[in-house]
């Protein structure tokens, strides 16, 4: 029977609380598109801060802020694995306390990592993986071909590309986490390498490529055309070579590019506010994107600290946010609105006033280009299946897919 591979669902999506430790603001790399403008070697999370934060979270089990069925403990940097010893200690403490408290998250948790993959093979990281494998999700970021990857993902001291040091760890990673995908980021300069990069990642054995354009206002005239051409080229190869049966690329999604109802589809896209982040100083944020090292032009938006807890009044605007209130009229009227994403942190950083209620539309032309290519992809794929007499089979096996949510 014909099949189209679907993106793996996110673990306990919508019923899991995302809690993020910014364990370090240091990284071996200085990726050119990285939104973390304030990385540094000084701000490493002390154990006491991590412990107090865990105590705060677990002691408030019944608060609405933590009344989720499950929890994803996220570790972010910089590069989180630079602090593997601390992370190991944090994870041990979480497990012990969940058990001691008979907490409802006891067997309903994940440890989640986004890593540049450079330290993946080290003894310390491997020991940690072995110890926690059942509850782990690790994504290694590899951007595609060597030339695409090395265009952006360079060492901070030498500016040398990091591809070789990452790709050598991919087989081990895939052996340990075969269903995991990689995250690819596209900026203006990367557009010519999209097709070759996605196909390269497939060849490396990565079956799920989660790819997105940066939210920042970096786009130049003609980028949308070039982007569309790349995606159509990619669509042709995926369909003509039957790669769609075993591989996914998040650029292609049946649910994007449709008009949205002001009433039914008024929810916020971004999860900021429903997530919670803590930094080395013990300050709490609605998402890491509101920490100072993530912001170019605005002050950090701190919603509390580990001593006093969350200031609920500062959380209210995030939880009250909806699509209509923050979007300009052109977005509300847009006929291809579905799947057009935004990042609350980028909205805040680029807003004309200190607000999270001004949606940045820097990706507008790129979204429209994506929609055109996406329409082409599905029209071509369905026609192919139809001509091969397999469309009905596919229709039967098709399930409802929602657009991805941050």
């Amino acid at each position: 029977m014909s099949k189209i591979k679907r993106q793996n669902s996110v673990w306990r999506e919508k019923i899991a609380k995302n809690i993020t430790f910014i364990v370090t603001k240091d990284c071996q790399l200085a990726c050119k598109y990285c939104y973390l403008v304030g990385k540094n070697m000084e701000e490493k999370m002390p154990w006491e801060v991590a412990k107090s934060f865990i105590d705060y979270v677990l002691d408030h089990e019944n608060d609405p802020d933590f009344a989720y069925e499950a929890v994803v403990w996220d570790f972010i940097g910089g590069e989180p694995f630079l602090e593997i010893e601390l992370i190991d200690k944090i994870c041990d403490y979480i497990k012990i306390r969940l058990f001691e408290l008979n907490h409802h998250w006891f067997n309903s948790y994940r440890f989640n990592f986004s890593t540049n993959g450079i330290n993946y093979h080290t003894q310390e990281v491997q020991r940690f993986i072995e110890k926690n494998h059942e509850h782990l999700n690790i994504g290694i970021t590899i951007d595609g071909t060597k030339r695409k990857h090395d265009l952006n993902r360079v060492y901070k001291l030498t500016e040398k590309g990091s591809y070789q040091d990452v790709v050598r760890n991919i087989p081990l990673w895939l052996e340990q986490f075969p269903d995991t995908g990689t995250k690819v980021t596209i900026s203006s300069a990367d557009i010519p390498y999209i097709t070759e990069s996605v196909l390269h990642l497939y060849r490396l054995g990565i079956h799920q490529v989660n790819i997105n354009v940066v939210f920042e206002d970096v786009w130049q005239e003609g980028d949308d055309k070039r982007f569309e051409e790349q995606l159509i080229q990619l669509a042709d190869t995926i369909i003509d070579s039957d790669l769609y049966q075993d591989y996914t690329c998040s650029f292609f999604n049946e649910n994007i590019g449709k008009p949205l109802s002001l009433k039914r589809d008024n929810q916020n896209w971004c999860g900021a506010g429903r997530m919670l982040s803590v930094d080395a100083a013990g300050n709490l944020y609605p998402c890491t994107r509101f920490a100072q090292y993530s912001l170019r032009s605005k002050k950090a938006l701190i919603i509390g600290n580990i001593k006093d807890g969350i200031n609920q009044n500062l959380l209210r605007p995030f939880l009250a946010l909806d699509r209509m209130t923050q979007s300009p009229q052109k977005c509300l009227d847009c006929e291809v609105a579905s799947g057009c994403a935004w990042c609350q942190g980028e909205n805040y950083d680029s807003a004309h006033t200190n607000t999270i209620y001004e949606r940045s539309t820097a990706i507008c032309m790129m979204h429209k280009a994506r929609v055109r290519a996406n329409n082409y992809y599905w029209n071509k794929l369905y026609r192919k299946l139809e001509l091969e007499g397999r469309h009905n089979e596919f229709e039967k096996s098709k399930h409802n897919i929602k657009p991805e949510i941050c």
Partner: protein
Amino acid sequence: MMQYLLILLDDTSVSFCHYDKPHTPRRLIGLEDLKAGILYAMKENLMVQFVYPDYELPQEHLNIIDTIDHHNIKPVGMGDADVVVLEGCDPTASSLNGKVCVLQCKKKELFTESDSISAILRQAQRLNVVITDQECFAYKDLKKYETLLDKWSSVLKEEYLTGRTPQFNLLTDRIMLTKPNHCNAGVENITLAPNGKYYICPAFYYSEPTDCIDPQNIPNQQLLRLDHAPLCRHCDAYHCRRCIWLNRKTTLEVNTPSHEQCIIAHTERNAARRLLSSIREVGVFMPEVEIKEINYTDPFEVRNEWQ
């Protein structure tokens, strides 16, 4: 649509709203700035409201003020005014007969000086009570506040039975209003400060003097409007001022009120409902008005119903 221009005549002009008057030295608005403000109001068709300090203005200022139709907001004891402002519960009650008054006070004073407020209600044509430390309200204060509102309701009912119909922002406004009656700073009114610059409202001037605006081009002005207030646009506490300065101070967003602002407004709303029902016990009164019974005091709690 912009309708009013508020002109603060001095840095020590009386505060008639949620902000505390800062302890700054006198700084009278310059004559040229005053003239420019008046000219702007004339060209933009704005009604001017002058806010006075507690000292006599120089004659040359008074002469310029007289060149335009206007309203005067003055501290009590400073002569004829359209709005008399009492800073604190120490009313010189005899001078408030038939007046439109604003009483600015803190929570503690509100609770200890309720009799003074009752006395004002028996004299004034209208009383606006403005609490300057709303953020200090907690759930435990609400019961006490409810009791006070019911006490003032009794005073109002007695007055109504004698034929007087005083207005009280905390109780009668909700009965009279059929739609929200917010402050609408930055949408229907703007402020000219003594430094000659324009601000969303006096509170923005005193709290962030660098936050001046171009009245013709207010950035993100849509966020000041009700249709861009995600909680307030669903709310029926119509008498609430929806103070965007307090919003920004407490939640960092001009369009999102604090929990405290909401629970206070809803306690008042519910007290207005009780007052309406109480007045109706003695006769037919505004039969077209209905204030529904609700089971929340903060619309944030029921946001999932419309999100």
